């Protein structure tokens, strides 16, 4: 994902512009219905553009902020191989951020504007990264559950009607599924390890299970903006459909690890051929979204600190680039 149910445009922006017969709005919808990709220079309704800018930039911000909780363990990874895998993973996330910002830029915003929105607290990023990673097992749990949930959300986005986003997602998904397997493998090693390691793995699952389910966004009954996004083929499945898929996919994996998800109401429903799970604490979701999660302040502070401390470096790079531009080019301009 990490982009569902975070921060949607106001409802009036979601009304398709001038869906008059034969008008650009209707032609646009016909193209979307015909599964044609919309490209940057094509006409598009303002609401479509704004929805995508928000969704793609929130996704990009989530990748960037997402580097922090796992980056927290780079210096303490317990083996050299694990350290290399983790650095590469965090690097991949930075790479995803970079090409998602580029995809957003095709819609007429600059990366600078978007980063400013993140740092000022105006733009949202996935709440999942406001949870802490106190142990090594949390790195495993993030890979397994958070990246697992992300894949569920992102695979349909590979068919998103907006070309640049869809193409970015193809690459992101390929890497995310690799990360998901790496995370699961960390959990597997821990669950086959000492009593202390198994305990560490179970505690991490307890911490990450419910927040992972919340990643799919509010329940369909409370998700106001889904219909229009689905009509525009930005979104293909509802929040609850994707959440159910994730649960059905993940429970057998937890069983294999010998770990239990922290849900006393979880049971297999043979008739419906799916797992039934207990109610999600949406109060917690709302609180974290409003900035009251365990690490909201730390995450934003870390981003602001890096940005502020890097200001002189970016200025120097610009000054040097200006100096080394050929004199003729300067005169021409």
């Amino acid at each position: 994902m990490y982009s569902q149910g975070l921060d949607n445009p106001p409802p009036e922006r979601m009304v398709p512009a001038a869906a008059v017969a034969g008008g650009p709005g209707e032609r646009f919808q016909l193209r979307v219905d015909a599964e044609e990709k919309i490209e940057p220079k094509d006409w598009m309704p303002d609401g479509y553009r704004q929805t995508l800018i928000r969704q793609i930039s929130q996704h990009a911000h989530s990748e960037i902020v997402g580097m922090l909780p796992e980056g927290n363990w780079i210096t303490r990874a317990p083996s050299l191989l694990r350290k290399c895998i983790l650095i590469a993973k965090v690097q991949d996330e930075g790479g995803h951020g970079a090409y998602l910002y580029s995809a957003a830029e095709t819609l007429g915003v600059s990366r600078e504007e978007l980063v400013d929105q993140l740092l000022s607290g105006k733009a949202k990023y996935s709440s999942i990264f406001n949870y802490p990673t106190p142990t090594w097992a949390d790195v495993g749990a993030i890979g397994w559950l958070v990246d697992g949930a992300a894949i569920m959300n992102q695979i349909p986005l590979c068919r998103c009607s907006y070309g640049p986003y869809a193409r970015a997602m193809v690459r992101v998904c390929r890497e995310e599924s690799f990360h998901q397997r790496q995370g699961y493998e960390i959990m597997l090693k821990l669950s086959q390890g000492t009593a202390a390691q198994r305990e560490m793995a179970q505690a991490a699952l307890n911490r990450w299970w419910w927040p992972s389910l919340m990643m799919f966004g509010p329940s369909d009954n409370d998700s106001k903006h889904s219909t229009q996004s689905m009509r525009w083929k930005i979104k293909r499945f509802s929040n609850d459909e994707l959440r159910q898929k994730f649960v059905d996919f993940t429970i057998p994996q937890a069983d294999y690890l010998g770990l239990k998800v922290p849900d006393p109401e979880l049971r297999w429903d043979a008739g419906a051929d799916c797992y039934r799970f207990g109610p999600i604490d949406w109060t917690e979701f709302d609180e974290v979204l409003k900035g009251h999660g365990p690490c909201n302040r730390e995450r934003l502070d870390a981003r602001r600190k890096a940005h502020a401390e890097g200001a002189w470096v970016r200025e120097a790079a610009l000054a040097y680039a200006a100096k080394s531009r050929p004199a003729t080019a300067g005169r021409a301009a």
Partner: protein
Amino acid sequence: MSAQPRALPSEARIDYVLQLADSNLILGQQLGALVGHAPALEEDLGIANTALDLIGQARHLYSYAAEVEGRGRTEDDFAFLRAERDYRNLALVEQPNGDFGQTIVRQVLFDAWQLELYERLQHSSDRRLAAIAAKGLKETRYHFRYSGSWLVRLGDGTAESHARVQAALERLWPFTRELFDEDDADRELAVAGLTPALPAVERAWSDRVSALLAEATLARPANTPFRWFGRRGVHTEHLGYILAEMQHLPRTYPGARW
């Protein structure tokens, strides 16, 4: 390096391989701490890249040391279960990341040294070491391009960036003496054709660094007698903290597998 290979005690060979491995690991570890906190997203990616290469090289070197030693130790035993006094890294690489200018100065001084060293080490009489150096050289060339181009941009950027990197250069320059401080053990390795003679590496390094500093409009600091001997296990105060953090899990859960 063309000298006839002589029988070297395996301890000397292991010690040298660990010097290279430890410097790579500690520098990679330090860079790893910066990933996610760099001045720009592109720098997060670039720093991660260098860190990965350095730790990757360290892994090859530790595996080789373990083979020569033949006592069943693994790369992780070397990395996580040796104390500070047994670490053989250059004191330069254990110096703090500081600001981005200090990170870059440390990197440039190291990359230029590693580049000149690997250029020659790829012809070592020790074929394993030669192969590791030849492979590492391709990565090191890239690292030097990265750190060198940043040094130029910062040195010749703004007044502030110039002052910052010049200060970092003054702070770190004393640690470069260790790169070329030749003792009997070094001479013995060179005579055996295992390593290049250090004076030749020093000349090449010095020329390379001088040219880069000139391009970056930075003044080359004078050599000072202040010396550390990280390669002989005499470290600055920083290494203890780096190891405490890095070795925390394997030390806390002895025997656990991860």
